[in-house]
């Protein structure tokens, strides 16, 4: 009898846990919600026009941040291309988003290299580079991991790196995280949802 009561209690608690899963599932967003939003310490880097630029950007825009390097053979060009498609998808609302490409290759990437690289994709993005310490400090806040594979000459190397996209709000806090394979339509839907929520909060 006592065990029977315990079983009911256990089943109830377990059901509550599973129900919690349903309630807690972040299904309403395509990206994964960072809750509470992560406040970044950031740093000062150089943009593609060699201007000292605070990161997160001190602009009243949402920021789509990703890490890469200009010699990257695959994922970085694809991500930039994807970012351009996202801006197209957002249409007139695209001005509310600033893509930010942060180089993890302080050995080869400088503002000029970033400017040339970004030009190829015709994406309105801010490219940031800097000294190794400043870049490392920023990368560490996102848990970005970089591993170097040395080639035959000093500058012939490739870098393996994490390939997530991070959505930052205008306060510079990380709100959502996407894998590199995320669908454009999902990111656009999330942005529009966040903007609706933001608008409702200001009313």
């Amino acid at each position, binding site marked *: 009898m006592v065990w029977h009561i315990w079983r009911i209690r256990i089943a109830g608690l377990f059901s509550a846990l599973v129900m919690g899963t349903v309630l*807690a599932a972040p299904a309403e967003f395509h990206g994964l919600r*960072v809750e509470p939003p992560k406040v970044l310490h950031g740093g000062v880097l150089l943009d593609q026009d060699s201007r000292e630029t605070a990161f997160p950007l001190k602009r009243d825009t949402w920021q789509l941040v990703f890490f890469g390097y200009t010699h990257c053979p695959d994922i970085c060009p694809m991500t930039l291309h994807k970012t351009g498609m996202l801006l197209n998808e957002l249409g007139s609302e695209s001005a509310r988003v600033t893509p930010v490409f942060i180089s993890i290759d302080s050995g080869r990437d400088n503002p000029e290299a970033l400017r040339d690289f970004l030009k190829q994709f015709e994406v309105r993005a801010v490219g940031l580079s800097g000294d190794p310490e400043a870049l490392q400090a920023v990368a560490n806040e996102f848990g970005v991991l970089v591993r170097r594979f040395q080639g035959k000459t000093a500058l012939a190397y490739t870098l*393996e790196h994490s390939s997530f996209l991070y959505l930052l709000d205008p306060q510079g806090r990380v709100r959502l995280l996407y894998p590199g394979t995320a669908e454009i339509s999902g990111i656009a839907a999330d942005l529009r949802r966040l903007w609706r929520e933001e608008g409702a909060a200001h009313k």
Partner: protein
Amino acid sequence: MRALTRMRGLAVLAMLFANTAWAAGAPAGQPSTMPSAPIDPFDYSYCGGKPVYPVIGINFATACGPRNQIGLGRRGHLMWLFPPRHEGDTPVRGKQLLTEAELKRLSLLAEVVQIADPAPASPGAVIYNLGINFQGRPDKRMRTPVSDSYTPANALFQAMLKLVPDAPLLPACEGALRDFDPTLHPAERVGEPAAP
């Protein structure tokens, strides 16, 4: 090389489950931290390299209940160990290789937990200790209650629990909700300081 990688994975899992039944079987003399380089294979989300998965360890219990454990290994196996329901019974344990989609989901949730700031602590009926190790990164550890509000850690815990075919032992407890260490024996939890 694969054997070395597997040993490293076991060592990390043992670290995350320190003082648990699984850790008791860990090889002696394993390093307490991951080597800084070289790391092979690479992380699961990558530009190049071979994917493996984060090691995740969770201990959870109600205030008066025994410790339950769930873990994810580097090679993508979900493992669980729940206490027996009746005295004299053997513990409920199991291991299964997850699908690519399941592993991707858990890895992404772990990634968010890794970068997220901890949610404000509060007491709860079920409390869990969570540890995550991504290769080449510092461990992430936290103790937090299960709640119906979304946090990345809650989402990860509940996603892992959903994949386990057995039910954990979570008896309801009398008294006010309080903070406690779920890895301790219930009798030793008395006097645990309240959550800040």
